């Protein structure tokens, strides 16, 4: 390898400023979102686990259950520690995605869209683009660290531990700065580069999760010692800092070292490829379309297939874990039991637990639904809609093609979750067939409530297309916050809670399903969808210039 010179980085400053300018809304949105999320959940746990006995009971519950160990590492009984057990993997994954998107946005995406070519013809060094992407992403992770530390500290947690907790998340972000710098040399497309980085993230999660799962629990049942696979994962390194317990900084050195090594690899790879190309050959595909592709519905299924499969795998896995947790739930006492029975609407804790979990799954599926339906907007502004509508497809058929996929996807995801939860819950309770049957029914009756959110998204796309993206996520967030998961905890007045369709979804399997709410929710869906259809047939399309 040739020695790098300063000339290779000429123009880095300018490109970094350009990158900062382009990201002036995106990155602050990430910081604010993650900061508010951490501040909110920490506040929730500070309040709910104010009694030490409750804290100990909850902590030992998640430490002793193998499924819960998969999603987090327990390290003694503390509110901060409990929050990290519940949220650390999510935060680490989001930080990794923030870094990945940032690096790829300023490197591979620039190349794919031809911007890099134009920039490359000006006075910039060979590695200036890469350096700018890396710098902006590293800065984003540093800011994120501070924001998260602040979000934890404002909830009365010790400042130094809070900073370590923030850094343990930021460190995972740093590693993925390096990962993305490498993957954008490998693949010639933005999607490919993001996909490989996301795959690496899944692998890292699996390593740390399995390491924690097969690890050992101390005699008090409060601290888990991870097995060796956890030490191979950047997520594992972050967890091993155990901020609110022993508070080690040294595992973060692994992350910094990994970043350095990955960047060296990225530079070495970049020197071996042409601008616009990847190191991996482009894939060839079919010369003819299969019959299944030849309709709008078939086309949209093909386009969202991989996203659906990802969701299906995740929901099946979570179903199995939450079903197996039934064992620990049966033994709950005190506040922890009250929490479930309050949200579940019954004093039978297992029933109440199943109600809550099924409703929670419904809310996750609603996220999928919003994400999938917003592709209609991308279809329109990205120009692919023009080709479809210019070839004999009516607007109604286009809309229907999207709806069929979205509705079928929701139903299948709910059923997958219910079946997998029923299987493991049935194993604990000794009646798998009954559990599966009851939970599938419970899952199915959630669908109208979920679809109300979907219908609102479709209405936004058709009625207020320009605002559809923020409006859709806004509707989703509102329905979640005022709904049964958080509404009662936030002491919202009942009329506000009633605004969320999830408040009206049947509390099955604990309570018998009545027809009225299901029909009412379905009617709301149909009303929104009909208004959307009328608007869509009348309005101009926002096609690219």
């Amino acid at each position: 390898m040739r020695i790098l010179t300063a000339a290779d980085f000429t123009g880095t400053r300018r490109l970094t400023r350009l990158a900062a300018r382009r990201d002036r809304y995106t990155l602050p949105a990430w910081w604010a979102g993650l900061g508010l999320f951490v501040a909110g959940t920490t506040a929730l746990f500070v309040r709910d686990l104010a009694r030490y006995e409750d804290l100990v009971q909850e902590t030992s519950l998640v430490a002793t259950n193998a499924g819960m160990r998969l999603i987090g590492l327990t390290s003694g009984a503390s509110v901060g520690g409990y929050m990290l057990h519940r949220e650390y993997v999510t935060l680490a994954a989001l930080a990794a995605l923030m870094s990945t998107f940032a690096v790829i946005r300023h490197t591979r995406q620039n190349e794919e869209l031809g911007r890099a070519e134009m920039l490359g013809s000006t006075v910039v060094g060979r590695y200036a683009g890469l350096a700018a992407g890396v710098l902006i992403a590293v800065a984003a992770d540093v800011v994120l660290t501070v924001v998260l530390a602040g979000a934890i500290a404002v909830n009365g947690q010790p400042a130094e531990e809070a900073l370590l907790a923030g850094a343990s998340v930021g460190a995972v972000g740093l590693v993925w700065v390096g990962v993305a710098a490498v993957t954008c040399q490998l693949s010639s497309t933005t999607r490919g580069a993001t996909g490989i980085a996301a795959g690496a993230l899944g692998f890292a999660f699996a390593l740390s999760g399995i390491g924690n799962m097969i690890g050992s629990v101390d005699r008090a049942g409060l601290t888990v010692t991870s097995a060796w696979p956890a030490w191979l994962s950047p997520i594992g390194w972050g967890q091993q800092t155990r901020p609110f317990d022993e508070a080690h900084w040294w595992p973060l050195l692994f992350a910094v070292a990994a970043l350095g090594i990955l960047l060296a690899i990225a530079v070495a790879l970049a020197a071996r490829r042409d601008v616009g190309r990847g190191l991996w050959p482009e894939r060839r595909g079919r010369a003819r379309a299969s019959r299944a592709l030849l309709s709008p519905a078939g086309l949209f299924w093909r386009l969202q297939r991989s996203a659906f499969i990802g969701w299906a795998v995740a929901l099946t896995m979570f179903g199995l874990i939450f079903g197996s947790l039934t064992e620990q739930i049966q033994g709950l006492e005190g506040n922890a039991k009250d929490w479930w029975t309050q949200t579940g609407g019954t004093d039978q804790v297992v029933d109440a637990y199943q109600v809550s979990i099924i409703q929670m799954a419904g809310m996750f599926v609603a996220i999928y639904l919003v994400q999938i339906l917003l592709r209609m907007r991308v279809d329109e502004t990205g120009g692919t809609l023009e080709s479809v509508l210019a070839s004999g497809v009516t607007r109604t058929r286009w809309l229907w093609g999207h709806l069929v996929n979205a509705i079928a996807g929701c139903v299948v995801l709910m059923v997958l979750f219910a079946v997998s939860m029923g299987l493991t819950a049935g194993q604990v309770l000794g009646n798998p067939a009954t559990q599966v049957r009851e939970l599938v029914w419970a899952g199915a009756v959630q669908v109208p409530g979920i679809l109300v959110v979907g219908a609102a998204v479709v209405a936004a796309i058709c009625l207020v297309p320009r605002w559809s993206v923020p409006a859709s996520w806004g509707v989703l967030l509102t329905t979640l916050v005022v709904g049964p998961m958080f509404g009662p905890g936030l002491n919202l007045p009942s009329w506000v809670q009633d605004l969320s369709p999830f408040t009206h979804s049947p509390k099955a399997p604990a309570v018998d399903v009545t027809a009225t709410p299901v029909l009412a929710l379905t009617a709301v869906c149909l009303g929104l969808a009909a208004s959307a259809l009328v608007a869509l047939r009348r309005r101009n399309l926002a096609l690219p210039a």
Partner: protein
Amino acid sequence: MARDTALRIDAVVASGLVKDFGTTRALDHLDLVVHTGEVHGFLGPNGAGKTTTIRILLGLLRASGGRVALLGGDPWRETAALHRRLAYVPGEVNLWPNLTGGEVIDLLAALRGGLVQSRRAELLDRFELDPTKQIRAYSKGNRQKVALVAAFASDVELYLLDEPTSGLDPLMETVFQDVVHAVRDRGRTVLLSSHILSEVEALCDRVTIIRNGRAAESGTFAELRHLTRTTVVVETARPPTGLASMTEVHDPSIDGHRAEFSVDTDDLNTVLERLVQYDVRSLTSTPPTLEELFLRHYGDQLERDTVLEAV
């Protein structure tokens, strides 16, 4: 009654077409008639309203005013039924990056109502397009070829082509022209919006020149040429004094025995009679090229832009 007959015969009839985007007027009483069986050139600078017109013809945009008929139907109300009888190549080809070219060709043709298999194979071969590559791996020109193959593989009555060759190399441009000729020989209609004047000249029976949302000129080349001036270069035995003062003679430049000027086609006879008095030794007359036609319509716009730049 006459209008009804015209609606049935002509592939496209737009009259007084208006389209407003908010306060911006994109089309300002545009008239456009495309006869069935002709290749019609649709010329105009960027932003003149070509794409907007085509999108109204496709029912993707709704006209703010005026009348428009496509294949005898209303493009806004009978959109899908009409689309089965036409094929469209957009100016900016946006396709699904993770499908292959072959899949996209089959998909678009199937949505339209099918394609002719032998023609699909022939077109892939002639355009030298590899159908197994993913769309994201194609260059701009190759994406355009995908759209062209998808359109021409279907046997439809009308082809709407919006600057279809802007990314093609000269070799592929020739293939494109052959394909359009073949389509016309089968009696199909083509509306070709284009920047490339030589292409329009080689392919089109009639042209409409659009400017600021209005049709500035429409007709066959012969008709358009008739409207404009012929350039004459003449050498005479006696100096052509007094020629410059003739009202029929425009932009004269006289240098001893040699004169160069332009003249309206209708005035050619008058001017020639006078020239004979000077004893003509040689004479060349050049009919206006499409470039000159084009520049004549946009010339004042160019001058205005120049003035603006100077300010």
